[in-house]
């Protein structure tokens, strides 16, 4: 054995061996050396691992949400361009500015300015189209619960059905217990909440402008390309977005914007930015108050592909059912539900008012299916034992949601460190997730190891906003250890 202290690993030779650049004699000589030199053997092992991992790094593609940063980069480009022009023309402009300033001082008396509360614009801002005129698109309903009406461009009013497409210029009004999901394009949809009244101001391929008059509209917007716009107008403000999941609500003349994912900017009628929200978070426009979001937003249903319509599945109102979960969407079970689903076998899960779950499979033909009450009764009684089983979720799926949620919790920790710079430790959260993937309960387990109560509460609240893939059946419960550490 060669003494490792006196010996440097033969790095170049080992790299040549790994790259198969050595002659047969060189290989044989090095192998003889490796049999006696533990240090070189270890180095060769590390070199091989490195080669393997380097290939993995090169094969990995970063997942970057460019659409999300598009708006910010436009603003930075604008600011940088302004700075650059300023520098370029600074000297000649300076002389002019000095002269102008002297004149202004002579002509104007200085006036005292007091801060003014943010005035609400008088009228809804109409945004002029940025793209060449494109044909308007026809939007399809993907789900309808309860009753809603549509007012056509000619002023005629009719009851909204799943088969009635909606168009630019029309208005939709929902009853107090209704919910309507509208597919606006590829991966883009909106869900109108109970009692909502909206105007479909502009439905074009690259531009969607929605006027929200009452209630709430929750949008799921695909990643927009430069020049594309998706804007919700409400109370004179414009809420613009670049690829996100957000909700705009009007309540007692207050405008509330909640963002689950992505980034939205709120501007007033003078195009002044009055707020921007990065999800998860919310913003009260009148007061400027910022907060987290209380609960997961409705997921607007994007069903089917452009140009084709999926068959309709209709479910009657059923008193013992609290929530329907069908094909990845959840609906309160008040009122009759009609929705677009893919033809074939569809899993229908009913969460009963007593908390139990009933799950069954229905076959939806191409022409659609209306489930009658007696059939539904039979379905809900069946599979009783199966429905009580716990759901399943792969550890990787859990880990991925927890890892994605950690930056949100980091803010809790950083705030806590401002008060107690020595806070560190571990705590374990027991997290209960329902069949739809919503977190229903988060409780700290065992000793929180010196982690302050307010920090534990903040972390719990943050974890309650996490959304997991639906585990099915009656949901799952698992433990998530959280480690808090820092360096001074």
């Amino acid at each position, binding site marked *: 054995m060669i003494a490792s202290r006196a010996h440097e690993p033969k790095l170049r030779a080992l790299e040549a061996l790994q790259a198969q650049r050595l002659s047969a004699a060189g290989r044989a000589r090095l192998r003889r050396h490796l049999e006696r030199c533990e240090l070189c053997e*270890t180095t060769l*092992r*590390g070199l091989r*691992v490195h080669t393997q991992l380097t290939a993995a790094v090169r094969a*990995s593609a*970063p997942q970057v949400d460019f659409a999300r940063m598009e708006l910010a980069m436009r603003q930075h480009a604008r600011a940088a*361009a302004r700075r650059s022009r300023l520098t370029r023309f600074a000297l000649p402009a300076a002389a002019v500015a000095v002269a102008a300033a002297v004149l202004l001082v002579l002509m104007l008396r200085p006036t005292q300015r007091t801060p003014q509360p943010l005035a609400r614009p008088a009228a809804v801002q109409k945004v002029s189209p940025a793209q060449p005129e494109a044909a308007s698109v026809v939007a399809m309903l993907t789900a309808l619960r309860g009753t809603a009406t549509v007012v056509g461009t000619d002023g005629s009013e009719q009851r909204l059905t799943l088969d009635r497409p909606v168009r630019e210029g029309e208005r939709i009004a929902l009853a107090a217990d209704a919910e309507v999901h509208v597919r606006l394009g590829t991966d883009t949809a909106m869900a109108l909440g109970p009692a909502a009244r909206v105007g479909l101001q502009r439905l074009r391929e690259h531009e969607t402008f929605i006027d929200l008059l009452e209630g709430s509209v929750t949008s799921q917007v695909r990643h927009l390309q430069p020049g594309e716009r998706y804007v919700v107008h409400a109370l004179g403000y414009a809420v613009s977005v670049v690829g996100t999941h957000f909700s705009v609500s009007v309540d007692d003349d207050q405008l509330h914007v909640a963002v689950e994912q992505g980034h939205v900017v709120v501007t007033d009628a003078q195009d002044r930015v009055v707020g921007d929200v990065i999800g998860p978070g919310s913003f009260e426009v009148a007061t400027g108050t910022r907060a987290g979001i209380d609960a997961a937003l409705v997921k607007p249903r994007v069903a089917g592909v452009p140009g084709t319509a999926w068959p309709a599945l209709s479910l009657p109102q059923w008193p013992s059912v609290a929530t329907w979960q069908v094909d990845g969407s959840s609906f309160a079970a008040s009122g009759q539900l009609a929705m677009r689903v893919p033809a074939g076998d569809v899993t229908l899960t009913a969460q009963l008012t007593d908390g139990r779950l009933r799950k069954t499979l229905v076959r939806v033909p191409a022409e659609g299916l209306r489930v009658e009450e007696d059939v539904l009764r039979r379905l809900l009684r069946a599979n009783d034992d199966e429905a009580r089983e716990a759901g399943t979720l792969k550890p990787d799926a859990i880990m991925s949601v927890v890892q994605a949620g950690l930056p949100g919790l980091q803010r809790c920790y950083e705030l806590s460190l401002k008060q107690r710079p020595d806070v560190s430790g571990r705590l374990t959260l027991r997290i209960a997730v329902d069949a739809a993937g919503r977190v229903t309960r988060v409780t700290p387990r065992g000793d929180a190891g010196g982690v302050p109560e307010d920090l534990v509460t903040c972390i719990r609240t943050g974890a309650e906003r996490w959304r997991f893939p639906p585990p099915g059946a009656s949901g799952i419960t698992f433990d*998530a250890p959280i*480690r808090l550490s820092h360096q001074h």
Partner: protein
Amino acid sequence: MDPLDPLVRRAQAGDERALHELFVRHRQDVARIVFRALGPDGDVDDVVQDAFIQIFRSIGRFRGNSKFSTWLYRVVTNVARMHLRSRRARPQIASGVAPEDAKPASLADGPEQEAERHARLRALYRQLDQLSEKKRTVLVLHDFEGLSPAEIGEIVEAPVLTVRTRLFYARKELYAALATDPVLAEVAEQVREAASGGANAGKRAGSEP
């Protein structure tokens, strides 16, 4: 001297569209450089955005003395380095399987493969975190980005010999660390078996008439 790209000239003149076009044209490259510098758990989105803000601010100072791509690498690498420095000083919150408790990755192909690959990359970058900033930068640019020592020398503004020395010591330290990392033990065994299998096959092939 590299003749200035008209797009770069327009951006330097304060053309907002040109700046945006630069973002669109180079965002994939910048994201790749940042990802490889920071690893799978890095705040790639934030750093990419910071890098472009820095590019927009300093493009006026680009004189065309080097290729635009070299200048871009320099700016992005420096932004990533600054981010790594600040990350070391930030409080950390972590969950799930702690790196030191992580189980060795399975060799079997299956649905867990992606998670295994991720765990291995995390282990690699954990070891990279132990290298000095200069050694790490050179190693990332050479081994992951495939740049030559001369190109790296231009980016980090150091002589080629210095780059080669940093690379030598970076690899030496990294190989020693990777060989003993428990998360990577199974990878080490896997590549050892593959290498010895290849060597035996070579011997067999060599012994045949």
